[in-house]
């Protein structure tokens, strides 16, 4: 299944020039399942572990540290976390594969709503083909 996902993501990256990187996080094992970078020099500054760390900090530690029940429950139902920056977006999205979160790095030329719909559609097809 991971190979099928990788193939789809590679296609997407070629199709959308503003997509700079794609990282697949296995939240159960707390590991990086897959990393794709458009430009290898981008990797000099950041690694997959930095993305795992921030997701862990916001969602999982948020659950541990939220003293009120509502916030703890709310954070369990994670769907998406988006950083809008001056030049682009970093989007953490829960995908139709259990325990996996996809991180996309896209430039401002790409509309985030369009990107999320496209990514979801491609991954849903992989999932349906595998079921």
């Amino acid at each position, binding site marked *: 299944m991971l190979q099928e996902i990788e193939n789809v993501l590679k296609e997407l990256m070629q199709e959308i020039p503003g997509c*700079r*990187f794609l990282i697949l996080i296995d939240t159960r094992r707390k590991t990086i399942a897959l990393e794709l970078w458009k*430009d290898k020099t*981008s990797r000099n*500054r*950041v690694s997959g572990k*930095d993305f795992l*760390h*921030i997701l862990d*900090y*916001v969602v999982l530690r*948020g659950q541990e*540290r*939220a*003293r*009120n*029940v*509502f*916030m703890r*429950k*709310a*954070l*369990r*139902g*994670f*769907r*998406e*976390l*988006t*950083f*809008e*920056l*001056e*030049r*682009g*977006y*970093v989007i953490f999205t829960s995908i139709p594969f259990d325990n996996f979160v996809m991180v996309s*790095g*896209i*430039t401002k030329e790409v509309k985030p709503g369009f990107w999320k719909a496209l990514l979801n559609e491609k991954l849903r097809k992989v999932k349906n083909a595998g079921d």
Partner: protein
Amino acid sequence: MLNEVLKVFEKIKQEIPQILGLALFDRDGFMLVSLMDFPDYDRESTAAFHADLWQEIKKFISVLPEEIDGSLKRLSMELDMAYLQMKVVGEYGIMVAIKNEKEMGAGALREIIDEITRRVLKAIGE
């Protein structure tokens, strides 16, 4: 000034009852004013967590590839039960948490937070 912001928050909460929480932060992530509608909300622990989280976010942004980096404009999170969004304007961060209802999509939240930001900036004289 902060009392004025609290008044703005109270008015907005009355206008849009689906709002669960509103907060104003400074550039270091310290909570200046908040209005939360959680039954057992603990201001101190939430403020402490937020300040730590803000430092982590700053570190994270500083290592991002330059094609997409730059200062943070907006941070949003969608959960099964709620949407959270923070807009950064100059020295301040304005956060809104709202119930995740079908008719209240991320686009609507964007408009709500823009309106709240306008009112808060007016209240603090920016």
